[in-house]
């Protein structure tokens, strides 16, 4: 039982988070204020969905580098619908989510039909999404968002932002989906060994399309949260998501070749990363170090993954 616990990622992450939390609480008086915790959680919300978005493609052994561009496109389309066409909030948000899923679906279909690697396909579609984004906005944000949406984006219950609700629901749904539904298990089976899964009757191509669609849907969710949080549809939404989207699932122990992901560990990794970012700001460290640390953490996590694989006899 003990060794199984060591094989899991979340205990180590929980310890790291506790240490970081303790350190910041002790050294930085601003850390434990209600407002700081609120700010910290606000950025956590978006990061969590971004991480889940990449996690679903990693689960089938694919990479999706179009997440940020897709998010940006969704944000400005939903924002444009509300500002320019006066579409009701609910309809605009639903349209945004549908657009995200559709973009993901296109990614998936391109990958499975052409047989081209997901990395290359999403690299190309990222540019396409960016192009449409800039074509629509000419780099000018939509500023006039409906008051109700902006209110939701800033509302909080003590330190808890209302924005936390969608990602938490998404986390629960994803955890159940991956662990307990046949489609979710198919996703991991295709990631674990595509040939074996296919020969076992799993519709491999459809599962890969599903993973990409889900990834697009989650990225769209993150974009809409960002829209509510910022109170404007910025064309640049999503431009800084890429590294984080890989860092969190990988630190959370996702197998790079596919077949294993952990919702809990990924969520904890996002907590840790958010904590690090917040800590560096509070300690007034040069923002350059944030990027630096993120990169270092990814390398460490991947190195650890290799080590584990080698020990299991698989590497």
């Amino acid at each position, binding site marked *: 039982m003990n060794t199984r616990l060591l094989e899991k990622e979340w205990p180590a992450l929980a310890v790291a988070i506790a240490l970081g939390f303790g350190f910041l609480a002790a050294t930085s008086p601003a850390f434990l204020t209600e407002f700081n915790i609120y700010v910290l959680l606000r950025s956590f919300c978006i990061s969590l969905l971004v991480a889940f978005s990449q996690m679903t493609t990693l689960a089938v052994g694919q990479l999706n580098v179009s997440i940020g561009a897709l998010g940006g496109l969704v944000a400005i389309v939903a924002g444009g619908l509300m500002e320019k066409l006066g579409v009701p909030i609910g309809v605009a948000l639903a349209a945004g989510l549908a657009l995200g899923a559709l973009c993901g679906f296109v990614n998936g279909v391109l990958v499975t039909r052409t047989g081209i690697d997901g990395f290359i396909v999403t690299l190309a579609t990222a540019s396409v999404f960016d192009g449409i984004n800039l074509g629509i906005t000419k780099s000018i944000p939509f500023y006039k968002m409906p008051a109700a949406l902006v209110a939701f984006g800033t509302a909080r219950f003590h330190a808890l932002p209302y924005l936390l609700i969608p990602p938490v629901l998404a986390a629960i749904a994803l955890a159940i989906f991956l662990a307990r539904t046949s489609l979710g298990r*198919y996703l991991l089976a295709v990631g674990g060994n595509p040939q074996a899964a296919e020969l076992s009757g799993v519709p491999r191509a459809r599962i890969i399309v599903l993973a990409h669609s889900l990834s697009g849907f989650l990225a769209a969710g993150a974009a809409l949260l960002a829209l509510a949080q910022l109170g404007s549809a910025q064309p640049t939404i999503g431009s800084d998501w890429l590294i984080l989207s890989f860092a969190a699932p990988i630190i959370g122990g996702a197998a790079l070749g596919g*077949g294993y992901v952990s919702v809990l560990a990924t969520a904890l990794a996002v907590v840790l990363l958010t904590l690090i970012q917040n800590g560096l700001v509070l300690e007034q460290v040069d923002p350059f170090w944030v990027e630096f640390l993120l990169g270092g953490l990814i390398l460490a996590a991947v190195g650890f993954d290799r080590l584990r694989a080698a020990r299991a006899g698989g590497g």
Partner: protein
Amino acid sequence: MRLAVENVGKSFPGVVALDGASLRLEPGEIHALVGENGAGKSTLIKILTGIYRPDRGRLTIDDKEARFASARDAIASGIGAVHQERNLVPRFTVGENIALEQLPMRFGFVDFDAVHKRARKFLDAIDSSIDTRTEVRRLSVAQMQIVEIAKALSLDSGVLLLDEPTASITGHEADALFLILRRLKAQGKAIAFVGHRLEEVLSICDRITVLRDGKVMLSGEPVAKVDRARVVREMVGREERIAEFERAIPQSDTPAMEARELATARGHVGIDFKLMKGEILGLYGLVGAGRTELARALVGDERIVGGQLLMDGTPVASRNVADAVHRQKIGYVSEDRKGEGLILAHSVRANLAITIWRRIADRLGLLRRSSELRVVAPIAARLDVRTGSLEREVIKLSGGNQQKVSIGKWLAAEVKVLLVDEPTVGVDVNAKAAIHEAIAGVAREGVAVLLISSDLPEMVALADRVLVMRDFALIGEVENDRNLERVSRLIMELIQSR
């Protein structure tokens, strides 16, 4: 150069691959190494080439003890090998491939003129028709093999090991290869030739060593002194008792699966057979005969381009693997257990249950571990899968137990037709018996089984009839009367008939 091993042993978890084997390669001789799949030939070759280190035994070069820490050591000692799998860089030219180990340099840059000159020198010694400036991917399989031989020779090897060099080339190309081998022999090289086709082996080799289950059955006898029948006997082991399995008599109503003049995208033509409920139908053929490809077409992984496939008398339209599995209830146990059969990093439970997830999900679409276990645990028990827990990752199981899992998932799926491809390659004797019992058990339950195997005793133990395939066509059928010698002879006669 003289290369010898004495009394070497090598074990892998759950399998004894070599058990006190010896082999002596003399200069100016071609030495045949034969045996069935899993007899230990490849393991022996890998020990001679420094890829594996033996658990015990001695390796000598010119009667002096040698020790290889790596494949590079063996190469440096003058041992060249052409392995079954190709070891060439497809996008590089023939010349670069041959000279890759010691690229000639000039002013710090690769000197391509020297590369091609050097490659030309070694190629001319065996076959001058290949242009050294051609990219390797444009060559035929036989030409690639020649390039590999030239590459092996370019390293000044006195010993040349060829692992099944004729498995994937035509008879005409093989003749050309033999001419080359005879020339090299005349130059005093010591050559080891691993082969499947006995006629071929006996015609070209000077001495023969037969391996069976990791032991030497015939040790370096001059080929002139042994006949074919003796070699077959030593390979398959006549004294080996053919296990009897309790079998139900195949039902003779409509066939569970029937092929009529079936043609596939991979080149099968005129495939006709009937597979009855409860029957085990053998499909025998040499490597490259097209057996695996046929199985993959039957399970929807290769396109069927002509003729008809009928399940329970009903024609089946074009489909994919998911249709074949879920609608037509056809299961395929791949010969490549690790690459295609199992998800190694996932649990035994998940691997066994993958085919039934859709079926056992509850009304909300959720899977319960308990409902998975209800189906899977009895199967694991029936097949005697040795695992501490069903939650254990499959990668941690022995080869035999892994194979039981890959058969077991089809029991869970309750298939009507099971295609089993080389089920006992690389598993030990006990696991083999358990897998045989599992296959016989599946048939007893009324499943129609198509058994692909290169292991004749296995065929004779399990199959009711044996279909023989050559060059992607069925060339005959042999009734199995459990007489290994007779059945082997009839099958070999079919294969060698022209």
